[in-house]
Each structure stands twice: as structure tokens, then as C-alpha cells.
């Protein structure tokens, strides 16, 4: 299914510490091929966000190697988009202008920015509050603006840090499906952090279960359901089996750790 191309993200024996704190990631090895949809799942504080921050070049590592698109993470940023764990909206811009921001920064023509941003806001169901400032939005709405903002960029590599955690199930499912539809069109690679096993199974072709203290890979689960995946997949027995498999791995991990 995945063409044999050089990996777009490659961790080799990477170790990460913040300052002189404890080891956060130990001997981390991971190769993500272009077009893969990889989910990270694991206990709180095990280093999932850290993995994304490393890939985006926002944080340096201590030992080992990491390349993104064959180069340093920092140099590959123009191919990436990052949906942070917090919405990180600029408080002085309306929802619409927050979504336009990355387009404007890329120098896109104003009319085009506006049109594109409107379209993305519609996709996340926020057309009606286009002119609201962030402080007028609910928690889930803020997160959706943030999602819209990242998706405008049509990136090659999308980093998503629990983007749907603050959303109700229905919206979440709908956005899951939208995400796969977008991916079908532009074939981006995704690194996806989530706490929902079902979501991970529905979206990914590979799930990495992480353990904590120090953060490390515990297990890897391949999910071979063909794309495009239909909502009905969620009801199938194979799907449930996969979910159970991942949940079991997760329980292993968490039972092994005290925190």
C-alpha cells in the first residue's frame, strides 16, 4: 500500500532531555514513509507532544539523529503544518483572520486568503462565528479554528496534537472523515496524537503505543483497512478487534508504570 520511498520522518536512536531534566525520550527509533498516517498513543506525559515538537524543529534533541524529508527538521518546516495541543489563536484577530494568517504569511493574495479561509471555516462548521474574537468562542470552537488554520496550508506533513479532544463525538467523527477525505486528495503524511483508540484505528495505517518513564516505543500496530474508509467501518467486528488489540497494549503499558 505504501510505496517504498525514503522515509519522510526518521528517528534514529534519539534521546531527548529538557535542559538537565530527566530523559523524556529514550532510544527512540521511527521511520515514517511518505503518505503514512501514524498515530501516537500513550499515557499522559509520556512524550507524544515532544515527538511532534522534535519533528517540527521547535525543540532540539540530546543524542541520536532525526531527519525530516532528508534534512534537518527546521529546514523542512515549509512542508509541515502543526495543530498544537492548545488552540494558540491570536487574541487580536477574529476567527476568520486567524485562519487567514498562514496564507497571508505565505504572501497569498488577500481575496484568495479570504475565500480559502471561509471555505476551511465552513468545513469545521464555524461559518457563523467568522467575526468572533477568540475570547468569544467556546473551547471546542477555538480548537476547530486552529484545525481550519492548519488545513489551509495543504501541507505534505501534518502534525496533529490531540486536535479533536475537545469536541463532541459527532463533530469529531465528521472531522475524522473530512481529514481522510482531504488526505485522499492531497496525500499528506500525518503524525497524529490522540487518546482515543477508536479514532486512532479509524484514521491510521500504523499505531504506535508509547510507554512512559522514559518515553519510548512500546508496540506498533498495523491497521490494514483500505482507504477510503467509510463511517460504517466503525461498526465492524474487525474494527472492534483492532480497537481491543490496541487497548490491551495500552493497558500493558500503563499497568507497567506507576504514573
Amino acid at each position, binding site marked *: 500500500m505504501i510505496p517504498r520511498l525514503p522515509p519522510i520522518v526518521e528517528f534514529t536512536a534519539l534521546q531527548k532531555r529538557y535542559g538537565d531534566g530527566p530523559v523524556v525520550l529514550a532510544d527512540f527509533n521511527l521511520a515514517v514513509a511518505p503518505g503514512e498516517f501514524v498515530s501516537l498513543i500513550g499515557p499522559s506525559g509520556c512524550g507524544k507532544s515532544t515527538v511532534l515538537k522534535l519533528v*517540527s*524543529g*521547535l525543540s532540539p534533541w540530546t543524542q541520536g539523529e532525526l531527519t525530516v524529508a532528508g534534512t534537518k527538521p527546521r529546514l523542512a*518546516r*515549509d512542508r*509541515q*503544518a*502543526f495543530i*498544537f495541543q*492548545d488552540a*494558540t489563536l*491570536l*487574541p*487580536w484577530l477574529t476567527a476568520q483572520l486567524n485562519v487567514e*494568517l*498562514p496564507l*497571508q*504569511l*505565505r504572501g497569498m493574495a488577500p481575496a484568495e486568503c479570504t475565500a480559502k479561509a471561509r471555505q476551511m471555516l465552513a468545513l469545521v462548521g464555524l461559518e457563523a462565528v467568522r467575526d468572533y*474574537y*477568540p*475570547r468569544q468562542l467556546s473551547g471546542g470552537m477555538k480548537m476547530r479554528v486552529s484545525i481550519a488554520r492548519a488545513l489551509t496550508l495543504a501541507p505534505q506533513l501534518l502534525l496533529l496534537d490531540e486536535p479533536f479532544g475537545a469536541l463532541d463525538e459527532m463533530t469529531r467523527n465528521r472531522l475524522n472523515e473530512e481529514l481522510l477525505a482531504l488526505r485522499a486528495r492531497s496525500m499528506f503524511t500525518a503524525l497524529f496524537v490522540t487518546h482515543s483508540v477508536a479514532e486512532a484505528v479509524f484514521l491510521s495505517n500504523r499505531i504506535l503505543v508509547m510507554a512512559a518513564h522514559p518515553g519510548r516505543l512500546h508496540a506498533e500496530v498495523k491497521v490494514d483497512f483500505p482507504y477510503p474508509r467509510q463511517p460504517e467501518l466503525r461498526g465492524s467486528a474487525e474494527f472492534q478487534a483492532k480497537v481491543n488489540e490496541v487497548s490491551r497494549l495500552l493497558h500493558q503499558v500503563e499497568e507497567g508504570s506507576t504514573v
Partner: protein
Amino acid sequence: MKKMPRLLVWLLPLASGLLFVAIWYGVRLVTGLQSWILPTPLEIIAAAWRERQALLAAVGHTAVGAAGGFLLAAVVGFGTALLLGLSRALRSSLYPWLLVLQMTPVIVLTPIISLWAGPGLPGIITITWLISYFPIVANLTQGLLSTDRNHVALFRMYNASRFQELRRLRVPAAMPYYLAGLRIAATLAPIGAIFGEYMVGNSSGGTGGLGYLVYSYNTQIKIPALFATALTSCLLGFSFVAVVAWLNWAVLHKWHDSFERNDH
């Protein structure tokens, strides 16, 4: 905080003002000070009325110097802080010299100023600028450096240039700091101009501004008129402060937490 009726916003300073005036009279009574040290408010107002023509002419003159210096400080201060915010290397190269400029007593520079800028208005504007410039730079720079690091990370992710990061992120985020700096500068500008008139002013053109009147009333021991001049200078300052307050409202009320609404 609870919302206050609009009326109270006006009544309270008046009430405290009355208290203040009462204390003032009290001080006069208790200490037996003469009006040539501390005139009463009434004496001051009477003097202001008596000297209204001189005061009006002078305040116009001083207003030009103060406004010129203030605008210059607002613009140049903004530019300087941008430079300082742009890179750490620039910051550590320039900041110490800015401090030197700020900390050099103006009197030492007066001959150079009156030579290069010329005496009269250009010199006055230069001195006003010198006096009100640094609070703006210091505040805006602190503001530019206080940007939320998550927002900075966002801009890094967009590969935004230093300049874009400054223009679209750091500057808007630092607006509360800039406006606090402007507020300080607004109160400094009129005294800066008066000081400037003292240093490089002359009375050419027939009027010499409030600085000249301060001198003139002082030597003539017209102390109530002197206080009336100070009052006029305060009124001038208030008009500057009012402009900054309006700006502050215009720039921040939509999004900043200093404009709390009761309604969360």
C-alpha cells in the same frame, strides 16, 4: 470588577478633587504659608483668568513643541524598539548606548542641540523627544520580548521571517506595553517642552511658551500666576493623555483582558 455607572466615573475624581482642595486650604490655614509659596486654588483660578491671554498664547506655543516631541518619540521609539526586538545582537549592541543617551543630563547636550537643531522650536522638540523617548522604547521592547512562546512557536512553524514575526505577532501582542509607554510619554511631553523652552527657548516671535511664563512669573513673584501656568501645562498634558487613552481603547478593547467585561 463591577461595572460603574458612567456618572460616577466623572463624579469620583471631582469628589476627590474637592477633598484635595479642602486639604489644600487646610494646609494653608495650619502652616500659615503665604500665597507666594502656596497660593489657594481660588487665587490660582483668579490669576489664570487675569493672565488668560498670555496663557493662551503661551500654551499654543508649548503645545506645538510638546506635540512635535511626543510624536517624534512615539514614532522613533517604535522604530527603535522594533530594531531592538528584531535580534538579540542588535539589542545588546544598541541598548547600552540608548541608556547612555537617556542618562546623559540634557543640559550637557543643550549646546549641541541648539547648534544642530537650532534654538527655538527645533531645539525644544528635540529636548521633548529626548525626554519622552526612552519610556516608550523600554516598554515596547519589554513587550516585544514578552510574547507568548506558544505563539512564537506557531510563527516558527509558518517559517515566518523575523520581520513578519515582529509585525504580525510581537507588535500586536506588545501593544499594551507600548500604550503604557505612550501614556508615560504623554505626561512627560508638556514638561519636556517647558524644560526645553527653558533650555533652548527664546521669546522670539513675541511669545515664549509656558516655559517662558514660568520664568517670567517666577522672577516677578507672581506665584498664583505661576501655579496657573502649571495648571495650564497640566491641562495640555491631559489632552495628550486623553488621546492616548482613546488609542488604548481603540486598539485593545476588542480583545485585551484589561478591558474586562462583566460578561465572561
